[in-house]
C-alpha cells in the first residue's frame, strides 16, 4: 500500500497528464455525441452572440460585393416575374398555382464561417424563433451551402459541403444519374462525386444538381459542374466537382423550410 502511495506521489504529474489526455481523446472519439451535448448547445448561444458582434465590422467591408450579388439576384427574380406575368396575361390557369406551396425560404445572415479546417461549420443568426430547425437545407443565390445541424433560440449551426461528415445524394443534370457528393478536405473550391457507375456518359462541364431524393432539398438546386473525372479501380468514377458556391465570400443565405416534410417522413417511417 505504501509503495503504491509513493508511486502515485512520485508520478503524480505524469498521472495527471495521462488523465487529462484520456479525457481529451474520449471527447475526440465521441465527437458526434459531443456536438449534441448540452454544454456545446449553451456555448452555441454564447459564441453566436459574440460572433454576431464581431461580424458587423467584417460585413461592412464587403458591402459592395454583397450589393452586387443582391442586384444580380434581383434581376433574375424580375425576369422570372416577367415570364410569369406573361403567362398570367394569356389567362391560362396553371394547375400548379392552386396547390399550396411546398417550400419557403427564411433569409439569414452568416455570423461565423470557416473554410480551411477539415470539419468546417457555419453559424447563422436565426434559430428556432424564426423557424430554423435541425435538418433543414441551406442555399445561397449561387447554389447549395449545407444542412442545419443544430439550432438554439436565436442561432443555428450549419454543416456545409466543406465538412468531411457531409454527404448528400446529387445527380448529373444531363442524364439524371444519382451519386453521392462529399468533401475530402483540401481546397474549398472542389468536392467529389462518387458512385456514378462506369457505363454512364460523363462529360467535363456537366452541371450537378440536387436529386430531390430527400426531404431536405427540392430537386434542381445548383451544386457545381464537373471539372475532371477518372475511372479508378473498379466500377465507379471519381469525379471532381467545381463548387458553384464561393464559401469564402458567403454572407447571406436562405434556409429552406419544407412544409410537407413531417408528412413525408411519417409516411416513410411507416413504410419501413
Amino acid at each position: 500500500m505504501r509503495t503504491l502511495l509513493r508511486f502515485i506521489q512520485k508520478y503524480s504529474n505524469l498521472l495527471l497528464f495521462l488523465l487529462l489526455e484520456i479525457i481529451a481523446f474520449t471527447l475526440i472519439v465521441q465527437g458526434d455525441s459531443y456536438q449534441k451535448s448540452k454544454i456545446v448547445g449553451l456555448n452555441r448561444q454564447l459564441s453566436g452572440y459574440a460572433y454576431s458582434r464581431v461580424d458587423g465590422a467584417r460585413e461592412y467591408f464587403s458591402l459592395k460585393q454583397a450589393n452586387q450579388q443582391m442586384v444580380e439576384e434581383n434581376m433574375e427574380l424580375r425576369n422570372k416575374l416577367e415570364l410569369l406575368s406573361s403567362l398570367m396575361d394569356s389567362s391560362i390557369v396553371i394547375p400548379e398555382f392552386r396547390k399550396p406551396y411546398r417550400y419557403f425560404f427564411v433569409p439569414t445572415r452568416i455570423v461565423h464561417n470557416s473554410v480551411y479546417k477539415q470539419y468546417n461549420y457555419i453559424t447563422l443568426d436565426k434559430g428556432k424563433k424564426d423557424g430554423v430547425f435541425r435538418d433543414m437545407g441551406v442555399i445561397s443565390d449561387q447554389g447549395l451551402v449545407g444542412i442545419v445541424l443544430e439550432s438554439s433560440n436565436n442561432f443555428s449551426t450549419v454543416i456545409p459541403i466543406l465538412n468531411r461528415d457531409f454527404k448528400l445524394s446529387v445527380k448529373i443534370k444531363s442524364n439524371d444519374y444519382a451519386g453521392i457528393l462529399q468533401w475530402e478536405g483540401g481546397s474549398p473550391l472542389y468536392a467529389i462525386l462518387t458512385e456514378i457507375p462506369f457505363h454512364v456518359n460523363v462529360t467535363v462541364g456537366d452541371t450537378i444538381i440536387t436529386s430531390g431524393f430527400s426531404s431536405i432539398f427540392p430537386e434542381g438546386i445548383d451544386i457545381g459542374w464537373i471539372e475532371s473525372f477518372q475511372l479508378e479501380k473498379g466500377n465507379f468514377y471519381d469525379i471532381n466537382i467545381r463548387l458553384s458556391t464561393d464559401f469564402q465570400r458567403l454572407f447571406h443565405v436562405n434556409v429552406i423550410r419544407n412544409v410537407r416534410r413531417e408528412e413525408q417522413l411519417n409516411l416513410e417511417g411507416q413504410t419501413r
Partner: protein
Amino acid sequence: MYIIIRNIARFLLVILFQVMVMDNILINGFMIPYIYILFILLMPFETPRWMQLLSGFLLGMGIDLFVGTPGMHTAATVLISFVRPYLLDLLSPRDGYEPETFPRIHYYGFLWFLKYTLLIVVIHHFVLFYLEVFQLKDFLSTLLRVILSSALSASTIVLSQYFVFRK
C-alpha cells in the same frame, strides 16, 4: 497574487483574441496562426507542474468550446504544457534561470525565445493537425500545413513580444 490575476486576464484575452481575430485570418486557405498557446509559453518558471497541466487543459477546452471541435485543441495544449518544463531544462542558460524573471525576450534574448517558441509551436501544431485529419492518408499535405502554420504562428508570437508584451 498580482501574477495570478495577470495570468487569468491573459488567459481570457488570448482565447478571445484567437477566436475573434485570428480565426478569421486565412492565408492561402492553408495557414492559420494559433497564437493562444502564448499563454502557456509565458507562464512563470515556478508554476507548479499540476497547475501548468490544468491551465493547459482549461485553455484547450476554452478554444475547443468556441471553435466547436471535440477535444483536439485540449489534447495538444495538455501535451505542450507537459513537455514545457523539460524543454525549459533543455534550453536553460549555463547558470540556470534567475529568480524574478519570466520566459520572455526581455530577459533571455531573441534567439533563446525563438528556439523556445518554435519547439513548442511545432509540437502543438503537429499534434493538432494530425488529430484533425485523424488519418495518415494525406501525410505530406498535412505536414506542409504543419510547417507553414508553425512558421506563421511562431513569427506572430515573437512579434507580439515586441509590440504587446514589451515589459
